[in-house]
């Protein structure tokens, strides 16, 4: 019926097939993983300066390590480890409908610690935020006693976000050097207060 296909035609088909397979392999290997698709948008910050995300602005004023902490509510929690106390100012930027400080994490190496909610209203962890009105108060992290001197504590980071699920929204990351800090025997912190410092 038709003329027989020449060997050149077969070769051309083979090359086209290989090219399509190569493109498919490339697409398959470069598709972002679910972690990459849903990852938080990291905003790096510096200790002492304000860092802003989409709906959160935070300033870490100081970081202290103490063996015992007394909060402004009178709460004095005991721990077999030590307390890393962060003095923080935080506020929402555009919207305060059910906006809170949902994520407050201290990451040392590959271990992460969440800000303690044992002091309840004595800490700003998990507290609701107001657009443009800063909330000033402490965060307390319960960590093992030997963590502060460990090598990974030099590159520890603090992470803040408005939701307890930090995916797909701004995540503020502030590096801190815990090895620089002296462990104090006791520390008293103020009750969280609203308004400009």
């Amino acid at each position: 019926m038709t003329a027989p296909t020449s060997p050149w035609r077969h070769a051309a088909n083979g090359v086209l097939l290989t090219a399509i397979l190569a493109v498919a392999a490339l697409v398959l290997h470069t598709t972002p993983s679910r972690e990459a698709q849903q990852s938080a948008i990291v905003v790096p910050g510096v200790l002492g300066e304000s860092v802003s995300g989409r709906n959160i602005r935070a300033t870490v004023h100081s970081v202290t390590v103490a063996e015992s902490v007394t909060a402004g509510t009178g709460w004095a929690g005991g721990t077999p480890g030590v307390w890393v106390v962060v003095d923080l100012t935080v506020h929402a930027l555009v919207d305060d409908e059910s906006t809170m400080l949902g994520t407050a994490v201290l990451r040392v190496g590959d271990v992460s610690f969440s800000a303690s909610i044992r002091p309840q209203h004595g800490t700003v962890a998990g507290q609701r935020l107001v657009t443009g009105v800063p909330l000033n108060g402490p965060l307390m992290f319960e960590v093992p006693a030997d963590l502060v001197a460990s090598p990974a504590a030099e590159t520890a980071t603090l992470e803040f976000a408005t939701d307890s699920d930090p995916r797909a929204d701004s995540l503020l990351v502030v590096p801190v050097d815990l090895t620089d800090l002296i462990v104090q025997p006791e520390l008293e912190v103020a009750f969280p207060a609203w308004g400009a410092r």
Partner: protein
Amino acid sequence: MTNRGVRGARRQRVRVLFDRLPTKWLLSSVSAVLLALSAVVGGLDDAPVAPVPRIEEGDSHVGTELTIMVNGALLIDGFPEQSIMPADGNRFLVVRATVENTTTEPRRLGTVDADSIGIAGIPSVPAAEPPERILVIDDGSDRVVVQPGVPVELAYLWEVAGDAVEAGDPVTVSLLDRDFISEGRLTYGGLYGDPIVSATLELALGDVGAGVNE
């Protein structure tokens, strides 16, 4: 032409051989071969399940995510200082334990499911009932997040009928491990199946009446 002839003859021979197979007996002969193979690898009985280890009070048990040391079980009327009181006629059964998180993420211990400590053998408490509350003994707070590497003393509370149990009654405390299935596809955090019992203890209940100051 001659090639086709030789190939054709070979095909004929193979076909004849296939015709000679006893198809009536094919299924039973294959089953017999498989049974013989299973006998070689141990037979058709269920594989023996390792029994759950029994530990004593004060022993530290290392689970997949938590290392738990149970310090005792007792009955108490309530915790009036924390405004935690049971319904009329009921009391609290408290299991005291020291829990340490051996993973790299903080672990929230909630009361929706029993996934760290469970009790059994108490008449008014159904099987796999989660604790009513979990409290930190040090400050009485009921928001328990166990940080990695920091052991914390906890009190697990179950509400029991006041006349169903008394001091000296035995209670079986089981230490549970979470059964990780996969990372959530849309949800944040892992998906877990039913908790697995990794150790049990038999304790005799103490009774502190109206309670000690804690």
